[in-house]
């Protein structure tokens, strides 16, 4: 499957998403669909740095939350339309990603992870104290009028998320196949060796950080319109940090389809479990799935599929993970 195949698939997906807004009258479909697509973007974005380069971002929720509040602030101040909010969030996300990277990416990977944990707390504290966007008390968002070519708001947001999914996956796919991806994989396998053989490691990591941050913030931006409510505790909540990581690992980090599969599978399971059994058990399922997959299927779903011969690809070799010392 080269790029033509990919674009045909993507176009088909978008057309279906748009058509569904007219055909599907049950809005719950869009609520669930939106959340699933949101996690596809987050997991794909996480994987660009975490999967390809092996640098673990624990602060996905920091980026997501910043996206949410960039949108809230711009909407409240200038009533900026949604596409511009998303664009602005992406710019802020790039800056935030690169800045965090500059501070810590010279160090071993685990320090980057810890810095991202700190980032969540610092940014959340900042938003809590920022009265303009509602502060700790949260803010209710009154949606602006709906563009005429969409029948419902939920449908429109679903399509927006679908567009972001296509962008995120296309970017991830490009990165994976390009010199950036090759460099990032070299970093993951042995950073020192990569550095010695002339791979511009810091620059590559910063690029990955910027891209990943931009995508995470961008998908945060439509969220206040979906929730019609924003509150720091929810925008920065832990599941936004853990789930993308878990989804990428469960799906498989070596190939761009991995995070997509992982996100669809895990978010569907979680949503299903939390409305059927109980959310304690959905948390337990997440824990058990994480442990089982990292132990029994280190290549994730993609690895499993490959093993049974259902999934073939020549572009990416199975990752040869060797300790680069956390």
């Amino acid at each position, binding site marked *: 499957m080269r790029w033509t195949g990919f674009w045909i698939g993507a176009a088909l997906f978008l057309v279906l998403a748009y058509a569904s807004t007219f055909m599907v009258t049950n809005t719950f479909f869009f609520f*669930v669909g939106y959340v699933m697509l949101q996690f596809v973007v987050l997991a794909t974005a996480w994987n660009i740095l975490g999967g390809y380069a092996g640098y673990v971002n624990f602060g996905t929720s920091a980026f997501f939350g910043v996206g949410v509040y960039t949108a809230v602030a711009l909407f409240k101040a200038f009533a900026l339309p949604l596409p511009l909010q998303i664009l602005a969030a992406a710019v802020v996300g790039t800056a935030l990603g690169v800045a965090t990277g500059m501070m810590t990416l010279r160090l071993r990977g685990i320090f980057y992870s810890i810095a991202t944990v700190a980032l969540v707390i610092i940014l959340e504290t900042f938003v809590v104290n920022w009265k303009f966007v509602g502060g700790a008390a949260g803010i209710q968002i009154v949606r602006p009028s709906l563009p005429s070519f969409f029948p419902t708001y939920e449908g429109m947001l679903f399509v927006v998320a679908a567009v972001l999914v296509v962008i995120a996956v296309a970017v991830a796919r490009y990165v994976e196949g390009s010199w950036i991806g090759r460099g990032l994989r070299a970093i993951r396998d042995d950073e020192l060796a990569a550095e010695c053989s002339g791979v511009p490691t810091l620059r590559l990591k910063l690029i990955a950080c910027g891209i990943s941050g931009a995508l995470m913030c961008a998908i945060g931006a439509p969220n206040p319109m979906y929730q019609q409510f924003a509150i720091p505790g929810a925008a920065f909540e832990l599941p936004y940090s853990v789930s993308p990581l878990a989804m990428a690992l469960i799906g498989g980090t070596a190939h761009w389809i991995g995070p997509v599969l992982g996100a669809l599978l895990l978010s569907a399971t979680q949503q299903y479990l939390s409305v059927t059994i109980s959310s304690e058990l959905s948390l337990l399922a997440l824990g058990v799935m994480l442990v089982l997959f990292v132990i029994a299927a280190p290549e994730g779903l993609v690895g499993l599929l490959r093993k049974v011969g259902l999934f073939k690809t020549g572009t990416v070799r199975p990752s040869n993970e060797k300790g680069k010392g956390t």
Partner: protein
Amino acid sequence: MSKIKVTRRTAVQMTGAAAVATGTTFGPQMASAQQGPVKIGLSMPQTGGLAAGGRASLLGIEVWKDDINAKGGLLGRKVELVVYDDQSSATTTPAIYSKLLDVDKVDLLFAPYATVPTGPIMPLVKQRDLLLMGNFSFQVNQTVKHDKWFNIAPWGPADSWGRSFIEIGEKAGAQSIAFLAADQEFAQNLVKLAKGVADEKKMKTVFEQNYPPNTVEFSAIIRALRGARADMVFVCSYPPDSAGILRAVNEIGIGENVKIFGGGMVGLQFTAVMESMGSLLNGVINFNSWLPEPSMYFEGTKEFFAKYQPRAVAAKVDPLGYYLAPYGYAQGQLIEQAVASVKSLDHKAIAGYLRSNTHKTIVGSIKFAADGEWEKTGTVQAQFRGVKDKDIEQFRGPGKQVILSPADRKTGEPIIPFEKARKG
């Protein structure tokens, strides 16, 4: 535990997003043509920070459900609850309420316990013009201004909560006030309104601090509070912090000036917390919604607790259930009375009935104002007295929490200053 599972059994019909895509259009008129059970849908925090309250509230609603079904149900149909866990989060509720409406096709909606999970549902019900019975959220209807919102919480007019506390202090001769509030939504709204009342009464604010969630240690904050020498201290805090604050007050002291202390501490209403705090509670004047004082018993109140308490012990939820559970029951009573009177499940008709009548419930009579809050506050301010350590039984009878306000519920006078009351 088993109680919760029963209510969830109804939820297993969900067969994934693909299957629901075939659903039909859903209008505001939710009158079901078929004569199945009357479905009441809600989410409830059963895990996460609000779970302790959520589980007690849910049990109160379930006691009502069993009562009404024993009486033959609503309009001759059995009542069934469809309940999901929102994990105390605002993130989950929009999808849950969409599922309740579009997939489960519930006839009536109850809101989840507390402000945070309720926040995102308000625009949703406004857009679809649906009746929503609130459950202890605070000021969630102020932006949306939905006319079919009825909050089953005694808060009443927005500033009456802070006002009742400040007036007790004023009567005791207080001229300055200190505010200590959690950096979270409800506490922030409450403290803002209380500040307004203090300004109106020309009371001097000598201390004002917000503290962040997950604060471990309050010694320094209480030390600073002591240094401020306020005449009264208004505290808006959340469960784990309320305990931490009281401990620090006991250890560090807040000075002889303070006449009254408390007001908006969430957590001290829960039995587990009261039991573990024991004598540290003495002297604190705090809000509550129901207490075993003679002025709080109405028709059916005693019977309710007789049914609730054994079930609560079995289900490992709040064994006394004073704060939230009776309101869960009252929520059901309101629906029961409205449906019996308008003889349909039509949201507009029910809302019209609820708006224009006074309703008798196990928590007293309720009349709603235009914004869906109570016309007159039912929030009591009560002072802990003579509480002993490690004794849950002491809270069953009157006298441990003497009601100081409002006037029609009053069962005693405050002991001041706080330091003196603490020893009593």
